[in-house]
């Protein structure tokens, strides 16, 4: 594989392609009240606002998820990539529903539209219900085996080879494509099982994890670095987290308290029963953070400033950093010290929070050396004038 190493570490944002709003249930799955007041549908006009705000705020890349009911990440990226000159697009792809040749073609198309700005994030599916609705009946281990074969075959097809590939999941893939002129996009990868870890260590550039307490992340990073060393490879790490930050910790926790109070218990119960059915080690790890905890908001603070309450209603990334801007920056710095280079953040609504965190969090991270690449002026972060937190 001749994929280039990703550039410097970065802070990234997230595009809510099934809708957005102020509530914890406003984006992601399940999405019980998509049509409620204040809920925003993922129209091209709205997604464009989020993408532009993300670029202007100084984030490095924006992650586009994939799932049934979400807008197609490739189409959204193709529609918006030329409207922002610098922002990179991290597209999520699940092997199993398209042949590698089509992915090669789609990557080449996006690279025409946005040269050097495409990143590919490979995941392997988590909801058996959803997988079967797509016509995919493989169990967890088989899905990851297929992913491993897919990633390998993708590299071969990219370089104009692989016509004779005769594997367990792909065979007779068709006439050879010409080798691509541009390098393959960097590969990011999500998956927490032992199989997933081996694939990540052997084949990809960045391994993404959902936010967990620092000690757990430290263990995972160390384990995977050993695995990667065994393959003679360099592996980098990314963390996916929501953020609720404010000038003071009290304000941030008060906001989170209000968000949770807003959710009916029935919605939580329904979401939990859906999430429990997921066939995903990563999901089980997120879910376990909620177990054996009290009912108060602070009871779900599973490590300093790391709150697991998003996972009450949302599958996928279920944890958030909650606190003052300085606290959140500090926590990110701690993860950075244990080897995590990339952070994919989000907040509700994604438009206003991109602007908000761009103004208050990114400069603090830049000062501590996490982001090095930006021309955007760093605002006066030493100001002591108290400011209204814009969203309260």
């Amino acid at each position, binding site marked *: 594989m001749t994929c280039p190493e990703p550039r410097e570490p970065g802070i990234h944002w997230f595009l809510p392609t099934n809708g957005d709003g102020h509530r914890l249930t406003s984006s992601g799955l399940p999405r019980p009240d998509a049509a409620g007041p204040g809920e925003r549908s993922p*129209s091209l006009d709205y997604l464009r606002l989020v993408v532009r705000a993300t670029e202007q705020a100084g984030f490095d890349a924006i992650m586009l998820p994939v799932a*049934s009911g979400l807008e*197609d990440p490739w189409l959204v990226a193709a529609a918006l990539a030329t409207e922002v000159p610098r922002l990179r697009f991290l597209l999520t792809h699940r092997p199993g529903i398209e042949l590698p040749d*089509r992915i090669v073609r*789609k990557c080449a198309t996006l690279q025409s539209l946005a040269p050097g700005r495409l990143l590919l994030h490979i995941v392997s599916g988590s909801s058996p219900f959803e997988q079967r*609705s797509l016509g995919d009946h493989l169990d967890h281990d088989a899905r990851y085996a297929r992913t491993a074969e897919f990633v390998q075959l993708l590299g071969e097809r990219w370089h104009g080879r692989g016509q004779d590939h005769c594997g367990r999941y792909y065979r*007779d893939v068709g006439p050879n494509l010409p080798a691509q002129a541009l390098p393959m996009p960097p590969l990011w990868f999500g998956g927490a099982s032992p199989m997933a870890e081996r694939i990540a260590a052997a084949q990809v550039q960045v391994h993404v994890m959902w936010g967990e307490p620092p000690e757990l992340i430290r263990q995972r990073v160390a384990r995977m670095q050993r695995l990667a060393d065994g393959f003679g490879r360099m592996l980098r790490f990314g963390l996916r987290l929501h953020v609720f930050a404010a000038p003071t910790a009290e304000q941030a926790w008060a906001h989170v308290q209000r968000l949770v109070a807003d959710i009916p218990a029935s919605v939580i119960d329904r979401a939990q029963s859906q999430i429990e059915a997921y066939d995903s080690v990563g999901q089980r790890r997120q879910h376990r953070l909620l177990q054996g905890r009290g009912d108060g908001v602070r009871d779900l603070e599973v490590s300093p400033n790391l709150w697991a309450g998003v996972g009450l209603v949302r599958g996928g990334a279920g944890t958030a950093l909650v606190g003052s801007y300085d606290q959140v920056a500090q926590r990110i710095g701690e993860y950075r010290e244990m080897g995590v280079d990339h952070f994919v953040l989000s907040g509700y609504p994604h438009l206003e929070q991109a602007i908000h965190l761009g103004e208050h969090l990114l400069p603090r991270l830049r000062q501590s050396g996490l982001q090095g690449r930006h021309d955007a002026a760093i605002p006066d972060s030493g100001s002591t004038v108290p400011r209204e937190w814009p969203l309260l």
Partner: protein
Amino acid sequence: MGPSFSLALFPSRADPTAPSAPTAWVQCAQAAEYAGIDGLFIATGARLLDAMAIAASLIAPTRRLGLWVAVDPGLLLPTALAASAQSLQALSGGRLRLHLDPRAGTAPCAPSSLRLNRDQRREWSGEYLRILDHLLRPDSAPLDFDGRYFRLERAGLGKRALPRPPLSLDGATDPFRIAAHADLCLLDDPHPQRIGPAIEHLRRQAARAGRSIAFACTLGAIVGPDEQQAWICAERQWEAQIPSAPPPDTPPGVARLHRDSGRSPRRFEIYPNLCRPDPTGPATLVGSPRQVAGRLRELYALGVEHVVLDLYPQLPQLLRFSELVLPEIANEEAKGERRDMS
């Protein structure tokens, strides 16, 4: 009335030394809209880029241009295609028309990339189309499908209430399938004496299935101030495009034809003003604006409601077509109405 028109776009892989391909696509789309053309037909093929993504990139630069997008069904599951089509339909505000091009290339996307014989491939296509057709309909129930090639449980998750994008099938598809699933059929041979019966036949089959279909064909157009100049222009153009020697695998009869006849493109005239020098390329209308308009109205009367215009050089021919031919079609329509009224 005359046919509606879509301009063909063949988005080839970017040549790193050439000027930006996306700029060219936007130019093509905006030119079509400016010229009063109804839509863009974005082709697919092994050497072409992804038509759906390109269509998405053209949503913002255009206002109302239809996006007729060709896809190779062998490369992805029907559930994935339906979901992407829905997404494009939502993002574009209902401008999508979806074309399945089975000749675009590769093996079907089956769980272990089976090598299928012809009958098996027909069966695979049949299952594919049934699933796709069902999932594209906004009001259809979640689908349980237990076939030989596809097995789905409650497919159609996340389907939204959007107008169904018309489904366009290639004329080479099994007529039974066209009758059962197509909203539009893109026929290869536009010869008026052959296309008329072909349309009638498919219409009858569709009617038996309780459905109606619209028909389309692809045509080039070389329009000159008069007939003679149009043919001169055609000769000059095809001289550059058609090699002096036929490719090595040309059938002997065609190769002999190539050798024995002169250089005039009129030797490929299959019908007045209709010329097909390259059997793998589109037939081309060659003539004065009135002649070209006349042939288009003739085809329209036979049932060709949509025409894909494959023009070269694209922008000059497009503007000529728009400024000279479209008014002729409108004029003839007006004359026809006056005749009806008198």
